[in-house]
C-alpha cells in the first residue's frame, strides 16, 4: 500500500473505480428520470391549482375543483413536509407490500424521487405561472382563446422559461439527494462508496473520489441547463424581412408620416 495520499486514492480507484462509476451512473439515471417525471407531475398539479374559479361557474364544477385542489394540496404539503429517507422506507417497505406491488429497487427509486420532486415542482410551476404578466392572459383571452389554449400556447412556455433555473436546481439536488435511497438498497454512488470504504478501511480516500464524481455530475448538468436556457431565449437580434437595403439604416419608418403633423395639433 502506497504511503502518500494520492497513491492510496489511485489504489482505491483501481480496485473500486468501475463499481463507483456504475453507482454514479445509477445516481444520474435516477436523478434525471426523477426530475423529468417530477416536472411533469409538477406541471399537472400546478396547472390544476391555477385554474381560475369564477362566480358564474356551475356548483358541480366548483365542488369538483375544490376537492381536487384540496387533495393536491395535501399531496404537496405531505411530501414537502417529510424527509425523503423516511418516505422511501415508508413506501418501499410499507405501502408497496401492503398494496401487493412488488417493484424492483430501481423502479421504487424512480417512483419515490419523482413524487418527491413533483411536490416541490408543483409550487415552482404555480409560482412560474403567477409570474407571467396577467396582460398575457388578457391578450390571449381577447382573441378568443380558452383557458386551456391560453395556458398551452402563451403562459406555459413563458412560465417554463422563468422556472428553468429552479428546474436546474432540482436536478442538482436530486443528483445529490438520490443518495438517501441507499437506505432501501439502491446501488447508487453513495451505496457503492460505503462498500468500497468499508472493504479497504480507507474513508478519506474513497470519499475524495466520491466527492469528485458528484461534483463532475452536478457541474456538467448546471452548464448543460444554462446552455438550454440560452437556446430558449433565442437570438438577440432579428432579420428584417425586406430587400430594401435602406431599411436597415432608416429604421423602416415611413408609415403615417403624412398624417403625423395633424395629430400633434
Amino acid at each position, binding site marked *: 500500500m502506497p504511503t502518500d495520499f494520492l497513491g492510496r486514492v489511485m489504489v482505491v480507484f483501481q480496485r473500486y473505480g468501475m463499481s463507483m462509476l456504475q453507482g454514479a451512473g445509477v445516481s444520474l439515471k435516477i436523478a434525471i428520470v426523477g426530475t423529468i417525471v417530477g416536472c411533469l407531475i409538477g406541471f399537472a398539479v400546478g396547472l390544476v391549482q391555477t385554474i381560475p374559479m369564477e362566480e358564474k361557474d356551475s356548483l358541480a364544477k366548483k365542488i369538483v375543483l375544490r376537492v381536487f385542489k384540496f387533495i393536491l394540496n395535501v399531496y404537496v404539503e405531505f411530501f414537502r413536509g417529510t424527509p425523503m429517507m423516511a418516505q422511501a422506507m415508508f413506501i418501499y417497505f410499507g405501502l408497496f407490500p401492503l398494496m401487493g406491488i412488488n417493484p424492483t429497487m430501481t423502479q421504487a427509486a424512480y417512483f419515490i424521487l419523482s413524487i418527491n420532486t413533483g411536490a416541490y415542482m408543483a409550487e415552482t410551476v404555480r409560482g412560474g405561472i403567477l409570474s407571467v404578466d396577467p396582460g398575457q392572459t388578457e*391578450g390571449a383571452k381577447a382573441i378568443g382563446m380558452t383557458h386551456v389554449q391560453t395556458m398551452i400556447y402563451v403562459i406555459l412556455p*413563458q412560465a417554463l422559461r422563468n422556472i428553468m433555473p429552479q428546474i436546474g436546481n432540482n436536478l442538482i439536488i436530486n443528483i445529490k439527494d438520490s443518495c438517501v435511497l441507499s437506505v432501501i438498497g439502491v446501488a447508487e454512488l453513495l451505496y457503492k462508496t460505503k462498500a468500497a470504504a468499508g472493504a479497504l478501511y480507507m474513508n478519506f480516500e474513497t470519499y475524495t473520489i466520491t466527492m469528485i464524481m458528484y461534483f463532475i455530475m452536478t457541474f456538467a448538468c448546471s452548464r448543460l441547463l444554462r446552455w438550454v436556457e440560452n437556446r430558449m431565449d433565442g437570438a438577440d437580434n432579428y432579420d428584417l424581412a425586406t430587400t430594401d437595403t435602406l431599411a436597415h439604416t432608416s429604421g423602416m419608418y415611413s408609415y403615417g408620416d403624412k398624417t403625423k403633423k395633424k395629430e400633434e395639433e
Partner: protein
Amino acid sequence: MASEHVLEISHLSKSFGKHVVLRDIDFTVNTGDVTCIIGASGSGKSTLLRCVNMLETPTTGEILYHGNDITSPGVNVPAYRSKVGMVFQSFNLFNNMTVLENCIVGQTKVLKKNKEEAKKNAMKYLEKVGMAPYINAKPRQISGGQKQRVAIARALAMEPEVLLFDEPTSALDPQMVGEVLAVMRTLAKEGITMIIVTHEMAFARDVSSHVVFMADGVIEEQGKPEEIFGNPQKAKTQEFLSRFIQG
C-alpha cells in the same frame, strides 16, 4: 329583439365589492360606427370597455350582441371574444412568439385556419400597419408604437366584427402616438366598427361618429362629436372639454 345593432349595452352596472364603478350604462353600436369614450381617469371608461369584452363580468345589466345577451350563463364567451377584438394600453403581445406568430396563433388555434392561409392573412394586416419587415422580431425587440401596431394587426387578423381599443396610445411618446393613430384613422375610413377609449381629443373629434362622455361611473352625455365638442350641454362635459376647446 333588435338585431340591426351590433352591440347594445343596457342598464349595465359594475361594482368591485362595495365600490361602484359603473352605474346604469346605456349605449348602442351599429355597424361601421366609431364610438369614442372620453372622460377623466377613473371615470370607468376602461372598466366599461373590459365589460364589453367580458374581461370583467358586469354586476347587472345586459350586453346584447346581435340581440343575444352575452352576460347570461352558458354563453360561449371565447367564441364571442374571437369576434370582438381588443387592443390594450400595454399591448399584451405574446412575449414568447415573434411578430408573425403573434398574428397567426389566434387564427390557427381559435379560428382553426390552416397555417398557410393564416400566414397570408397575417401578412396582409402586418403590411397594413407597416410592420411587415419586422415579422421575425420578438416583442421585446421593437418599440412601443411598433408593438401597438402589431397588436392592432393581431386583432385585425381575427377579422372581428368590432374592435375595442383601451387607451391604445397612453403608453406612447408623441411620435409613436402619431404612428398608431394614423393606423386607426385608416381603419375608421374603411368602415370598421370600433369602440375607442381615448384621451386624444382631436382624434376623437375627427374620427368618431359617436362620442360618449363619462364621469364618475355614469354616462354624462353622449351624441355626435359636433354636439359634444361644439356645444356640450352638461356642466361636467363643459369643464372637462374646456381646456381642449380653448387650446
